């Protein structure tokens, strides 16, 4: 259901202000969403003054700097720091992206950092992605072959392999799904761009033998057709992929196939 306002326990309050102690002239204000499950208060926005003279170029560097030098209680996910693992997906300057690949110079004014939108917050910038992973599991993201005795390699032509370009690179960071208003309002039923892009990836794989049943499975008013081409997903994808186009291709296949 469409609920524009946040529930009462999610309303964001003003938090602490961490004044700069380094005496630097080149400061930027960083507003970060904080919520501590052990306290039981509403979430708050803490503001940090960060010395930009001694800070590398990405938003993740700012977070590391805050955690190392200003406030060690800040919690966020991060791992590879090279845009490969997808852990540090968050909302920066009103747009989803990976903190490790988003330059802070691209954000004007104060830097606002929130967890991925419309998720249950576990702590600070960490959102609960269980629902998304369950949906991912539901599309059975593995190669399905009916021939049980097959032990040889299944060949794939270069052309067929090329069809997977733009789909296999997805790192499941959830930037796209959590940017999608349709997914916000119907996240329990609508699969969302990330999972549908993966569904598409298995539907078009020439080696997969369950194409028909895969198509039949996603052909659902709520699972698939909640996509209204708002295109928040494509503009959010840190890997430059196009989930909206993949969804359109699935719709097209369903419109032309006899199922």
């Amino acid at each position: 259901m469409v609920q524009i306002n946040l529930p009462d326990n999610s309303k964001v309050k003003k938090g602490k202000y961490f004044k700069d102690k380094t005496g630097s002239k080149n400061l930027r204000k960083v507003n970060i969403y904080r919520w501590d499950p052990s306290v039981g208060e509403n979430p708050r926005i803490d503001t940090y003054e960060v010395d930009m003279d001694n800070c590398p170029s990405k938003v993740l560097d700012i977070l590391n700097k805050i955690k190392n030098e200003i406030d060690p209680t800040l919690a966020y996910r991060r791992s590879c720091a090279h845009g490969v693992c997808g852990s540090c997906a968050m909302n920066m300057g009103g747009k989803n992206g990976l903190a490790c690949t988003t330059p802070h110079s691209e954000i004007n004014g104060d830097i606002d950092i929130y967890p991925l939108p419309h998720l249950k917050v576990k702590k600070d910038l960490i959102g609960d992605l269980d629902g998304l992973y369950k949906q991912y599991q539901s599309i059975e993201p593995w190669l399905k072959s009916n021939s049980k005795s097959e032990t040889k390699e299944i060949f794939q032509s270069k052309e067929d392999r090329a069809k997977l370009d733009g789909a296999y690179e997805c790192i499941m960071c959830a930037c796209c799904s959590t940017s999608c208003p349709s997914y916000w309002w119907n996240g329990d039923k609508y699969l969302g761009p990330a999972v549908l892009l993966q569904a598409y990836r298995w539907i078009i794989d020439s080696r997969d033998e369950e194409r028909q049943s895969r198509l039949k499975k996603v052909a659902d008013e709520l699972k698939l057709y909640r996509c209204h081409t708002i295109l928040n997903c494509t503009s959010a994808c840190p890997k430059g992929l196009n989930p909206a186009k993949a969804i359109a291709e699935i719709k097209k296949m369903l419109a032309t196939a006899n199922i």
Partner: protein
Amino acid sequence: MENKTPLSPHIQIYKWHISSLVSISHRITGIINIIAITFICLFASLLVLGENSYEMAYLFLNSMFGKFLILGLTWSFLFQVLSEIRHLIMDLGYGFEIKTTRITGLMVIFGSVVLTIIFYLIGKSFI
């Protein structure tokens, strides 16, 4: 503890861009158009009901507010038409690149305004 878990902010913080604006306007104009069609039906039945009721409709539609309403509805219909064409093209699988969506989105926004002005001028020269 579990039900105390807050929901992270969504529409309150997410940045708007051309495509999301066109998409939400498409929905809003859709609702407006349905109401508008009802009013047009009412207007048509007023014509049938005789001279007095026609006079009433005539006065209302020639008032400032009436003219504003007509222009607004013209825009709303034209926006819907252009946006629907954009959707049709997208349903065929074209125009999904970020740059293209921005251009087509702007075409819908400005096109609907320009067409409204053209319609207004054409209508004016008829009357």
